[in-house]
């Protein structure tokens, strides 16, 4: 294969070379177990503390409020299941939204099967939850509000500060899945009244298999993984030292470069959105045009099915993703696209392209030029398009 244009940074990112560099010594040289007494290993305890400090700082949190996990999914599961268990005495009601990641939604469904009640808030056509809906959903038994910071498919950034204020006012715990937002938008847990926050290393050029859950001190949730005394007795398991070091490095990198990087990406993003909107007929931008992750482009193309777009793009060296059912092997398209009101057949024709700082304007032009041809080609084979054209006449 020749050139590769990787436009799927919401799925995963390349581990930055300096991140790998930082991790390497912890595999073969400083491989000791941080719990050990001898000096060869006990230094790793300090190294972990330093990463906790970096991450805490990035969020306006204290270092000891950061608990390392194996990734975003574990963090989400921990936050929801342990809160449900710990605050069961207070109530059994949880509020979330219809556009959460499956790590939240399937956990909520699990909790429903265990006797909890869950309200799944609707979103508007741009994917924003409505604050009035949230207020109306609150019950005396509500113990948790979990709303994602930014959506992984359509890039919409939710009104987190306002949600936090409502939660705070009602003394309800507030968790946010910030897997897509952390490192892309500034976050301050105090300003937004966030009590718990999930993050995953591989979404911001860190390694896979490492994440964290921020837990505000005072929040009384217990371990999700029981065992050894690691992570202040709240998450057992020998620490993934290289992973933690890599995560710390990635956060440092993401935070220090955030302004420059995201303003670059935002410009490219808007250029791409403009070209596609203008040059490809019968398309629709999904997600909020303004309250949007700096690197997210998501369109639906009528009469086109997503997977066949993806394969054609792949043949041109372009990596992208789709909310099409076909990419997941199920029959229903993305729940997010349905929640913003797209009919099934249009949801099937969606394409997500998520940029990074290595993408150039030339790359974007190459992608859009190819995309135009591909959409045209697929439409020429589409019975839906045939019917549509006949009706037009």
């Amino acid at each position, binding site marked *: 294969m020749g050139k590769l244009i990787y436009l799927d940074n919401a799925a995963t990112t390349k581990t930055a070379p300096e991140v790998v560099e930082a991790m390497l010594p912890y595999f073969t040289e400083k491989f000791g177990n941080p719990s050990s007494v001898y000096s060869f290993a006990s230094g790793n305890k300090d190294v972990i503390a330093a990463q906790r400090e970096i991450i805490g700082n990035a969020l306006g949190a204290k270092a000891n409020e950061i608990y390392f996990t194996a990734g975003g999914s574990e963090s989400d599961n921990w936050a929801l299941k342990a809160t449900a268990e710990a605050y069961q005495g207070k109530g059994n009601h949880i509020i979330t939204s219809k556009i959460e990641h499956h790590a939240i939604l399937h956990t909520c469904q699990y909790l429903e099967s265990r006797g909890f009640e869950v309200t799944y808030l609707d979103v508007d056509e741009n994917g924003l939850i409505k604050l009035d809906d949230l207020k109306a959903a609150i019950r005396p038994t509500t113990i948790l509000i979990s709303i994602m910071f930014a959506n992984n498919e359509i890039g919409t950034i939710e009104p987190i500060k306002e949600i936090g204020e409502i939660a705070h006012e009602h003394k309800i715990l507030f968790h946010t899945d910030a897997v897509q937002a952390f490192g892309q938008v500034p976050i301050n847990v105090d300003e937004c009244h966030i009590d718990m926050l999930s993050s995953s290393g591989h979404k911001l050029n860190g390694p896979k298999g490492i994440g964290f859950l921020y837990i505000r001190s005072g929040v009384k949730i217990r371990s999700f993984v029981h065992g050894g005394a690691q992570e202040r007795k709240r998450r057992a398991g020998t620490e993934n030292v290289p992973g933690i070091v890599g995560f710390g490095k990635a956060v440092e990198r993401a935070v220090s470069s955030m302004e420059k990087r995201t303003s670059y990406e935002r410009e490219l993003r808007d250029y791409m959105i403009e070209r596609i909107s203008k040059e490809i007929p019968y398309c629709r931008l999904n997600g909020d045009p303004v309250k949007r992750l700096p690197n997210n482009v998501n369109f639906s193309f009528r009469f086109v*099915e997503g997977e066949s777009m993806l*394969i054609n793009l792949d043949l041109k060296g372009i990596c992208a993703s789709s909310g099409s059912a*076909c990419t997941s092997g*199920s029959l229903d398209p993305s729940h997010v696209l349905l929640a913003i009101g797209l009919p*099934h057949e249009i949801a099937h024709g969606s394409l997500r392209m998520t940029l990074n700082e290595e993408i150039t304007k030339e790359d974007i032009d190459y992608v859009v030029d190819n995309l135009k041809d591909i959409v045209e080609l697929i439409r020429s084979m589409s*019975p839906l*398009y045939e019917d549509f054209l006949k009706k037009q006449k």
Partner: protein
Amino acid sequence: MYTEKVMDHFQHPRNVGEIENASGVGTVGNAKCGDIMRIYLDIDENEIIRDCKFKTFGCGAAIATSSMATELVKGKNIREALEVTNKAVMEALDGLPPVKVHCSLLAEEAIHAALWDYAEKHGIKIEGLDRPKSDIHEGEEEEEEEY
């Protein structure tokens, strides 16, 4: 994920298009589920399929199975065409991933639907051919979660 044969038929689909005044046309699937196949048949007086074209809205496997199915029925007579099952299409493509097997079923159904249309138009009955289901996914279970 796909075999070379599937990719070949996806990249160079055979028999894409429409046939004006076709002897039979069948459309199956629905947009809701993300795949629709339409097959046009041109059948001569000896019940030989002279030509066959398709239009498909769907994933890579849907397009490749449409293409392969049209290739397989072209030149065959009606009875032979009925024997072009989804298994035959899959085999001709060197296999499909399990989650894509339903695409090959769709191709089989599309041919049957086009043949049914031909039979209706000509007032004949083709033995072994049932009225096409209105929705290929009817009765099809969503892949069971393993546990």
